């Protein structure tokens, strides 16, 4: 006998029974298809939801917390910031360019859905190793996709991350964060209300995009023509359509013409119609024949679950429909009435408004009644591997330092990161700083927004709880280096297969680590995304929670000093001493990924961050850079390579001092005339300092340990990406 339909659609037997109970009758295939996409892991968070509840989400400045399309915080002067992060990992593994492009498109819609104008994108990216041609193919395609879409849609990509590691071979991570601004009084939520109001579909026609999961329902003939069962799952982005959609939607919002608006993302119309209805406590009749199609012969289940890009659903009062259509016409955006708000809470799919009823389900059941799993958790028994603390000292520390360097400008120079004239500190530094201008009047507030994304799979593999807390701490320090104070966190939890108890344990631990750190730094989590089943060839990726941190610069009267050296300036290392190499980048490159993570002292970390922020605000520094992957050695080498000034460092005990990744540490570059003053400020803040050397000349010298010419160091920094990524790729 054939497999029952619900299983082919990815629903469990229990879930199918549950659906029939909700409906009080057997579900028909269309209804089953809608439940199957809405109850998928991707849409329902069924494995992670019970854990996510533990995150701290409240603060007086939070206007909208997790659960909506984006988190929204008050940033003063009548301006609110909407922020959200999403993953597009799996699509990018199959079609890197379009996977990344549509990832950017999707996150943008989440932001302008809230009434905000998107002003910045960030793209934390993780790929397999550079010596693997397919990983290079993915990396090149993904970067080109972000570039192609982000630049053309007219939203600058102002920062991100780029990591190459064997754990991501076959399963890249493509996360995209978007930040938008709106006048505080224009906040709109994705909900329908007002019986008799109209649901208007804006944007692209609907094709068979992204209906992979429900294509089992497709009639024969469709798959005969070509065997491309992957075909329907690939979505193609159209940044030009999105650009017009942004302008049209913001124009509709400016004129207060919509009651609610919702983007179409995962699960397409099934999601958007049921979500707007259930949030508004109403129902909706949808005429499936009214939906403009790109292809002939599409069936209702395809239309309802298609993930065609660049579409929005607006709920409008009938009286203003004409004006709505007029604005859309100006922007050449297709707009079609496809539904009506009803009372009673049923989502009905009809063939013509007066025609036969094809599906009739309680709208809220697609969300509120989605299954919740408390999957088993288990800490792994095997240790991760040897600790780098047990390794012998390197013979050639200089060469090993150069091996750890990687200039990422090959990536971010492909992104417009300056549009809107906001970018005071762009990609390449510890964090991005944007001028904060009013989104509709353009008035400059004289303040700034600071933004960073961070992740560290090495730390999280050793200890997901402590590792995630360390990542949050790093974000806080990155912001401090540009003078920013933290305001809100969004996070993207990239993990393996949740059916593996070790993965669920990692997820749960990471959430606890994030909660702990966010509480310690008094920063709420306003949104996030969970991406599970990141595995290839049966191996789960290392746990990779990615943190996006938004902050404020209270007075943006000058450019922060940046991660640079200045000839003749003194180098001061702030923060506690550290020497363990557990979980370090250096350890990982020597097959010693294990050990103990450095301890994080929250109290100390807050003091260091506050001190650095103050020193930056007071213009006391010639340069500043926090220590992260690769420790002091990499931090100084990056600064030297970027500024063309060498370093002369006092004697350090051994390579540990160079490569350990202990938290709460920052290199200050200080004009000798200011040194006394800076050291006094550090003393007063009760932050330990060490005077470690001098920025000078054309050599990079650590006494008795290494001596490199600035030229070779700079080449080692600049060449890895351009060389590897020009070397040829293959999709095999």
């Amino acid at each position, binding site marked *: 006998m054939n497999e029952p339909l619900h299983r082919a659609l990815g629903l469990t037997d229990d879930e199918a029974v549950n659906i029939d109970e909700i409906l009080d009758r057997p579900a028909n295939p269309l209804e089953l298809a809608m439940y199957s996409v809405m109850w998928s892991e991707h849409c329902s968070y069924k494995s992670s939801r019970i854990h996510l509840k533990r995150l701290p989400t409240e603060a007086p400045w939070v206007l909208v917390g997790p659960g909506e399309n984006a988190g929204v915080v008050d940033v003063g002067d009548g301006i609110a910031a909407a922020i959200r992060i999403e993953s597009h990992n799996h699509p990018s593994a199959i079609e890197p360019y379009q996977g990344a492009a549509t990832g950017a498109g999707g996150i943008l819609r989440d932001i302008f859905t809230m009434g905000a104008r998107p002003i910045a994108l960030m793209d934390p990216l993780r790929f397999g190793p550079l010596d693997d041609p397919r990983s290079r193919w993915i990396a090149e395609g993904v970067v080109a996709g972000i570039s192609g879409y982000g630049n053309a849609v007219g939203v600058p990509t102002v920062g991100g991350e780029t990591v190459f590691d064997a754990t991501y071979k076959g399963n890249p991570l493509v996360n995209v964060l978007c930040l938008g601004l709106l006048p505080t009084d224009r906040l709109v939520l994705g909900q329908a209300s007002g019986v008799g109001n109209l649901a208007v579909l804006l944007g692209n026609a609907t094709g068979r995009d992204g209906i992979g999961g429900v294509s089992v329902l497709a009639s024969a003939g469709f798959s005969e023509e*070509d065997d491309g069962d992957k075909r329907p799952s690939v979505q193609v982005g159209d940044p030009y359509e999105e650009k017009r959609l942004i302008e049209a939607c913001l124009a509709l919002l400016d004129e207060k013409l919509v009651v609610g608006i919702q983007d179409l993302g995962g699960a397409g119309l099934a999601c958007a119609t049921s979500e707007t209805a259930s949030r508004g406590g109403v129902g909706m009749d949808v005429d499936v024949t009214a939906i403009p199609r790109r292809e002939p012969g599409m069936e209702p289940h395809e239309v309802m679950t298609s993930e065609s890009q660049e579409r929005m659903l607006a709920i409008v009062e009938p009286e203003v429909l004409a004006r709505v259509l007029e604005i859309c016409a100006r922007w050449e955006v297709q707009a079609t009435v496809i539904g009506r708000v009803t009372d009673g809470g049923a989502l009905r799919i009809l063939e013509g408004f007066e025609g036969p009823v094809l599906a009739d389900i309680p709208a809220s059941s697609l969300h509120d009644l989605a299954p919740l799993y408390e999957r088993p958790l288990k800490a792994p028994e095997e240790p991760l591997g040897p600790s780098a603390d047990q390794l012998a000292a390197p013979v050639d520390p200089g060469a090993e330092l150069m091996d750890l360097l990687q200039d990422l400008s090959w990536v971010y120079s492909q992104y417009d990161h300056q549009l809107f004239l906001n970018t005071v500190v762009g990609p390449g530094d510890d964090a991005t700083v944007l001028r904060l201008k009013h989104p509709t009047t353009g008035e400059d507030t004289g303040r700034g927004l600071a933004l960073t994304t961070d992740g560290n799979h090495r730390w999280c593999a050793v200890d997901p709880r402590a590792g995630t807390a360390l990542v949050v701490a790093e974000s806080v320090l990155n912001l401090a280096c540009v003078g920013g104070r933290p305001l809100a966190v969004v996070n993207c939890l990239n993990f393996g297969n949740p059916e593996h108890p070790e993965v669920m344990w990692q997820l749960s631990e990471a959430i606890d680590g994030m909660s702990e750190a966010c509480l310690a730094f008094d920063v709420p989590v306003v949104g996030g995304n969970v991406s599970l089943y990141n595995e290839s060839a049966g191996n789960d990726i290392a746990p990779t929670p990615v943190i996006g941190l938004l902050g404020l610069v209270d007075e943006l009267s000058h450019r922060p000093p940046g991660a640079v050296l200045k000839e003749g300036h003194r180098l001061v290392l702030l923060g506690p001493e550290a020497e363990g190499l557990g979980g370090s980048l250096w350890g990982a490159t020597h097959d010693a990924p294990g050990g103990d993570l450095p301890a994080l002292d929250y109290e100390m970390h807050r003091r260091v961050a506050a001190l650095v922020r103050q020193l930056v605000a007071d213009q006391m520094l010639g340069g500043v850079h926090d220590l992260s992957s690769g420790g002091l050695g990499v931090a100084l080498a990056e600064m030297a390579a970027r500024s063309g000034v060498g370093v002369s460092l006092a004697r350090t005990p051994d390579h540990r001092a160079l490569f350990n990744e202990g938290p709460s540490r920052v290199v200050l570059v200080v004009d000798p005339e200011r040194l006394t003053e800076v050291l006094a400020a550090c003393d007063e803040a009760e932050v330990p300092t060490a005077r470690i050397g001098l920025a000078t000349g054309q050599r990079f010298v650590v006494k008795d340990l290494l001596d490199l010419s600035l030229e070779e160091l700079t080449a080692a920094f600049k060449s890895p990406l351009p060389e590897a990524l020009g070397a040829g*790729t*293959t999709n095999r």
Partner: protein
Amino acid sequence: MKFSALVDVRLRGGISDPAGATIERALPALGYQGVEGVTVGKTIRFTLEAETLTEAQTMAEELCESFLTNPVIEDAEVTVEEAS
């Protein structure tokens, strides 16, 4: 021996083609009526060394599948002939 190859790449059926659609939408304003179904593809031409036509054909096809196109969204037709 030298052969010349032409790879004619098109988006697979059903995959949306924003460039084609945009050109099509623009045409009436330029005074062209009745133009429909606009699609945009690309061609890659090159010469290659091989012993025989069959070998050249195989090589060009493999190059096409593993490198020049992504078969997930693109279809390609490969034509190889002896170079003149």
